[in-house]
């Protein structure tokens, strides 16, 4: 271990920043869409969800990475599910204790972090073959990339759908008097899909490498 690389070497920094943009879990890797769309009606819910996923992903990445040499390959999916499920139960109990209102609104989606593809995807693709510290950074990075999309989608849905930001009203009353109306459609589920579709469009329009072949 004489040639230890520094904790924040260029490679490790890349693990953190790549998922924010060109390797984003939602728009590029297509992981974790299920929960990403359903809870983005309000900013608050999205931030809580993003933080929960970050905690679960970072910790389970580290745990699996520590165990990676002792897990028999045949039963690795069960082992991964047990680790994730345990973490999710912890997060769920904490949310119920300290943020009951949000936990009630997220309803089944906290539990569904278990089957969030980001978790299985990252554990399988990264933690099974890397040391704990890079796995930790990979977990934080991917959860941040996931959270980023969540927050962008929630920002637009809340702004256009309810005229609020983090529960505060920001569209002035004068606009409503002038005939402006909240777009009720933005609150409904289908618009989350369209919003993500537009984010993908913008991102791929800027970065030609990501464009899919016909």
């Amino acid at each position, binding site marked *: 271990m004489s040639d230890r690389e520094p904790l924040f070497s260029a490679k490790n920094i890349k693990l953190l920043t790549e998922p924010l943009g060109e390797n984003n879990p939602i728009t590029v890797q297509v992981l974790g869409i299920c929960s990403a769309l359903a809870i983005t009606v309000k900013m608050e819910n999205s931030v809580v969800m993003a933080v929960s996923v970050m905690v679960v992903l970072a910790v389970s990445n580290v745990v699996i990475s520590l165990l990676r040499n002792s897990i028999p390959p045949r039963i690795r999916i069960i082992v991964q599910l047990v680790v994730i499920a345990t973490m999710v*139960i912890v997060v769920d109990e904490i949310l119920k204790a300290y943020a009951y209102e949000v936990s009630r609104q997220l309803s089944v989606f906290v*539990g569904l972090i278990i089957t969030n593809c980001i978790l299985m995807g990252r554990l399988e693709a990264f933690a099974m073959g890397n040391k704990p510290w890079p796995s930790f950074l990979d977990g934080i990075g991917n959860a941040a990339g996931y959270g980023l999309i969540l927050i962008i989608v929630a920002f637009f849905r809340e702004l256009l759908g309810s005229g609020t930001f983090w529960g505060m009203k920001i569209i002035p009353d004068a606009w409503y008097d002038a005939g402006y109306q909240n777009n009720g459609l933005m609150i409904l589920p*289908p618009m989350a899909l*369209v919003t993500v*579709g537009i984010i*993908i*469009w913008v991102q791929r329009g800027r970065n030609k490498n990501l464009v899919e072949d016909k």
Partner: protein
Amino acid sequence: MENLVNIFVKSVFIDNMIFAYFLGMCSYLAVSKTVKTSTGLGIAVVFVLGFTVPVDYLLQNYVLKAGALSWLSPGLADVDLSFLSFIMFIAVIASMVQLVEMVIEKFSPALYSSLGIFLPLIAVNCAILGGSLFMQERDYANIAEATAFGLGSGVGWFLAIIGIAAIREKIRYSNVPAPLRGLGITFIITGLMGIAFMSFMGIKL
């Protein structure tokens, strides 16, 4: 009986897994390239949901719920194991998927080979766990209702994936803007289909 049909139709059209809750999106987006594979995956999901929801219903009501253990002995009446439900449900789902896989392999090898890799992957499909968690949250009155809900959700998912696969097969011939090609347009089409499905909202049977 009327009640069961009601729950079934409601979970197929109104509370559609894909369009109302976005459950199982990952495999929905990944596998919907052709109608043939989507049919296979859809059938497998109907199977597994139809099995796991009733089993998890029994588990919920006779083991996990507060006071559910009182049939064992009155002393256990105040035991509440509901915090274990995630881990129990996912264990049931993983093992049911294995079981369904073995049963299909034994009795219908043709179906088995057409489902292929999708069967084991269903264990991590959010629609399955979501089905069990919604069943828990909505507190169905008896096992028949839970089964109707499970099957209905599966059929709803099946319809959704067949629909999008058919559209994706056709859209290959259209001139979609390059950055929107593939994933982007699929998202937007799903959104539009969702809006169409919303017209079922509010229907009482």
